[in-house]
């Protein structure tokens, strides 16, 4: 077995938790399957970032530092990663299933003629992987054939790596022809929020169709979210109904979260939603329907009218936190 290459995504000059998860999974893969754990970091003016990620006990960091890579673009990034894979005896490419990871990895896999497993939650010693299918109703054991394999990692399935042990940093030369530069970055409109991000928050409070409107998210849910210092999420039903933007969606086709504490407020608990939050450490459900399926996964269930219970809970939390 050749080396494991972790694609280390960075945002605004830092590595989000999802990247530390990929590093941990990459090190685990290397120790179980053989080879060294290498890291690829792509972008422009990367010296500090490359040094930082080299401090996570990896064998080597390869920095592809070029102005053409300043913004993430699938075509240029895929060609660059393919070059790094071929030059470094890589037999497993790995990244977390973030928006970038999901967009990039299949493109690299197809260029290499490699099989890919999405959203893996386990690495087996025999070289197979565990991954969910059918909204988490099935856990499949999958095998990949061929000289190079590609996997994306579910962000909640592995711990974040801790710093320790300085690896070397090597600069890679980047060569991109016109065919690799067909896409242009136009703009990024960041959702402005002072709250923690959904996938990094210790507490997540999600609202569903039971909230009945976008205004009620603001009036009822947000004060609780802020009293707890939590991130806000939503069910697909609430997103479908236009109450909140899609980047708040927790579920099969949205974000997968596993915080220490998860509140499901006015969420019935469709399988598509459970797929995105059932691995949370403690789950609280507030719903007026005692038969709602969400109570089947909740550690603590409160059968109540959310429009009364949520403001009361907000006040109690504020009192408790003093």
């Amino acid at each position, binding site marked *: 077995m050749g080396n494991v290459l972790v694609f280390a995504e960075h*945002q605004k000059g830092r590595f989000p938790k999802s990247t530390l998860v990929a590093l941990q999974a990459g090190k685990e893969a290397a120790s179980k399957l053989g080879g060294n754990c290498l890291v690829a970091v792509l972008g422009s003016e990367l010296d500090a970032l490359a040094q930082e990620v080299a401090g996570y006990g990896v064998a080597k960091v390869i920095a592809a530092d070029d102005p053409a890579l300043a913004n993430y673009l*699938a075509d240029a990034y*895929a060609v660059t990663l393919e070059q790094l894979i071929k030059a470094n005896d890589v037999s497993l490419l790995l990244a977390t299933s*973030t928006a970038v990871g*999901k*967009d*990039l*990895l*299949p*493109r690299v*896999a*197809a260029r290499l003629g*490699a*099989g*890919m*497993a*999405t959203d893996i939650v386990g690495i087996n010693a025999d070289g*197979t992987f565990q991954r969910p*299918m*059918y*909204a988490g*109703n*099935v*856990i*499949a*054991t*999958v*095998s*990949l*054939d061929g000289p190079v394999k590609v996997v994306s990692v579910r962000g909640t399935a592995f711990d974040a790596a801790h710093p320790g042990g300085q690896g070397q940093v090597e600069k890679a030369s980047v060569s991109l022809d016109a*065919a690799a530069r*067909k*896409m*242009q970055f*136009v703009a*990024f*409109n960041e*959702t402005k929020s002072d709250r923690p991000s959904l996938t990094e928050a210790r*507490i997540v409070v999600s609202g569903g169709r039971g909230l009945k409107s976008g205004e009620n998210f603001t009036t009822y849910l947000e004060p609780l979210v802020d009293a707890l210092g939590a991130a806000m999420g939503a069910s697909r039903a609430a*997103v479908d109904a236009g109450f909140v933007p*899609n*980047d708040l969606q927790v579920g*099969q*086709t949205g974000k997968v979260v596993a915080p220490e*504490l998860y509140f499901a407020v006015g969420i019935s608990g469709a399988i598509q939603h459970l797929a995105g939050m*059932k691995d949370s450490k*403690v789950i609280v459900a507030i719903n007026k329907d*005692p038969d709602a399926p969400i*109570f*089947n*996964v*909740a*550690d*603590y*269930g*409160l059968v*109540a009218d959310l429009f009364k219970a949520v403001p009361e*809970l907000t006040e*109690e939390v504020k009192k*408790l936190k003093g």
Partner: protein
Amino acid sequence: MKILVTVKRVPDPETTIRVKPDGSGIVTDNIKYVINPFDEIAIEEALRIKEKLGSSEVVLASIGTKVVTEQLRTGLAMGADRSILVLCEQELDSLAVSRILAKLVERESPELVLMGKQAIDDDSNQAGQMLAALLDWPQATFASKVELAADQKSVQVTREVDGGLESVGFALPGVVTADLRLNEPRYASLPGIMKARKKEIKEVPVAELDVDIVPRMKVQRMDPPVKKEGGKKVETVRALLDLLHTEAKVI
């Protein structure tokens, strides 16, 4: 312009999925099948582009056995012009699917390929990106807005990414995959259903395409997930908070 839209037949998302006791697959008795919901959004987007431009052709493509005719007929009833069904009995991975689709693109030469961002059965989220790679075309996944330039030669796509919305642009041809908020798909009208009966579903045996469909990714076995037990019901907000504070120690 010509738009190719891919269609996958999947179990209805409301269906309860159970794993066979021997782990060889899922229980398929009494399952209702539908068009993958994200593919429906892709069809709708193609139809809207066609309606805006006046002169366009929307071609559906799918892979599977003859049963997929049902889903293609639904897509044709929504308003697509014609369809291609690649007949294949074998289980395919995303790479094989993409290689088949790449062959169809070679034959059909569409300016735009619209796909769903992921199929809700295997949840792989790979085929669009892989097809774009094989064709060496640009790609825009997770699209929430598709804006075609006035000369129809390029496109700007708004993408739903972590922490906000990203816009990318490229000259056509290209691949765009649909996210949830791109549009609200229409229902087939009765006249649409009548018309669809006469529209073409061209069957192409997969062997005729001469592509490598040996899967690189194989499902070895399936297991049900570990079931989580429901916990306590509490009566009051105060009791809930007490438990979270003193028992679970999370607040």
